[in-house]
């Protein structure tokens, strides 16, 4: 007990030292923070009122952003299904396959989406399509992991019943597992859509389509009232998608 306590204190001191270390060597000092904060506040002031005349252009780009999120999420949600089954211990045949599936999903999740977008853009060129592909690949990582957990948590009864009647592997999965996991799969895909709407609004910062493209342009040109309009649009869309998705998820599960 006493040992644990000492260990706790040592850990805490170590933590404080690490935090102190993280403030060193960065170009951060109180002076910059203190001059920066009023500067940022002044810019927020310039953003409002937003440029309403720009709302039409923003709307078009926002719709493209939603499209990217929808298509990217669906690609991820569909491709994640085989990965999810591969990584589920009660479906996959061998521990080796499960280990392989789980590490592959971990690896995919580790890779930042924007990095993927940059690499993919070298192949298909800049634009929304590259963003969709990056988002699709990245989404497989998290959805595959969640799917695998859903599959591992199913009721084994129907599966055993099917097996006892001599159903083959595909039939067992199709009639015994799919009906059980489909609502959870759909719910997780919707949850991923909420994340991806935010991600899609950022993709444009590297040139991969959506609202990020005019945002970057207006930030560089320092046209703050247009930046304000874009931010307002993003807030509205993200909020609507969040509420819509939460409503649908409640109805599904």
């Amino acid at each position: 007990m006493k040992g644990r306590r000492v260990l706790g204190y040592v850990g805490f001191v170590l933590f404080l030292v690490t935090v102190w270390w993280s403030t060193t060597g960065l170009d951060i000092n109180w002076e910059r923070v203190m001059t920066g904060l009023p500067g940022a506040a002044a810019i927020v002031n310039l953003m409002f009122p937003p440029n309403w005349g720009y709302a039409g252009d923003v709307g078009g780009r926002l719709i493209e952003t939603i499209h990217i999120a929808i298509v990217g999420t669906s690609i991820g949600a569909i491709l994640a299904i085989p990965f999810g089954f591969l990584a589920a211990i009660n479906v996959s045949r061998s521990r080796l396959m499960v280990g392989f599936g789980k590490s592959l999903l971990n690896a995919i999740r580790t890779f930042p989406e924007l990095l993927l977008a940059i690499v993919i853009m070298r192949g298909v060129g800049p634009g929304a399509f590259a963003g969709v592909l990056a988002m699709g690949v990245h989404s497989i990582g998290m959805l595959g992991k969640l799917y695998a957990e859903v599959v591992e948590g199913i009721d084994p009864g129907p599966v055993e019943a099917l097996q006892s009647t001599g159903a083959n592997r595909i039939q067992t999965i199709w009639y015994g597992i799919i009906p059980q996991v489909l609502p959870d799969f759909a719910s997780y895909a919707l949850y991923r859509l909420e994340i991806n709407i935010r991600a899609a609004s950022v993709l444009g910062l590297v040139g991969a389509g959506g609202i990020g493209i005019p945002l970057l342009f207006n930030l560089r040109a320092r046209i703050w009232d247009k930046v304000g309009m874009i931010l307002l649009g993003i807030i509205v869309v993200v909020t609507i998608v969040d509420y819509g998705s939460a409503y649908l998820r409640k109805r599904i599960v």
Partner: protein
Amino acid sequence: MSGGLHNMDRLREERRSWFYFAIGIAIYGWSIYGVGFDPIDLVRGLPAMGNLFARMWPPDLAYVPTILPAFLETIKIALLSTVVGGLLAIPIILLAARNINRTIWLVYTVKAFLNLVRTLPDMLLAAIFVAALGVGALPGVMALAIFSFGIIAKLTSESTEAIDPGPIEAMEAVGARKLQVIHFAVVPQILPQFVAYCLYVFEINIRVAAVLGLVGAGGIGRLLLRDMNLLRYPQALTIIIATFVLVAGLDFFSTKLRERLI
């Protein structure tokens, strides 16, 4: 007769499902058209991506010492912003928890504010701060700190609302002041969760910090962008692998800590 009614209900229900299905398909068609989804482009682009990898291989290991400072900067940004965000969240957590703050309108105002903060994507905040404050690690830390603050405050205040009311009532019954109640009845119950959420946010922040440089907000992403633009592909691959190791390593470390906490 009831059977007939039942059938009509079912028919209506069925018609409604088809209606939703059709709307879904229409939205899909529009989306696929809208993003310029083109399988031919993809097939044509694959060799170009393969070619890119061929030109990247092998990674330039002699480049590792050069990128080390930016690598460490990425870790510093992630850590510092999580700590700042967590500290900023502490007072807001108490204000946003219904069972601590009994002024209901204030609770809802704070919750609405937190929802608003969370709608803004982290990279977007970073891009705005870069435009406002100039290139460097500072805008990155500020953007991630605000983002971390939003998530930590929301998650922890929700956990706070679910704590056991017994200790609070007991303290109030003996006439303890608000701060005493918080210190002795609330903090011990939510501290492990608070730390766990901070670690969870730290895991997110590492991923973001690794790409912050793409918008000029410090860290290793800046070097990646430069090397990709200069067509220094083996160097770019070294950075990509380093990013991968960084995220995977810190992720593993943080997950282990979180498992021990709860």
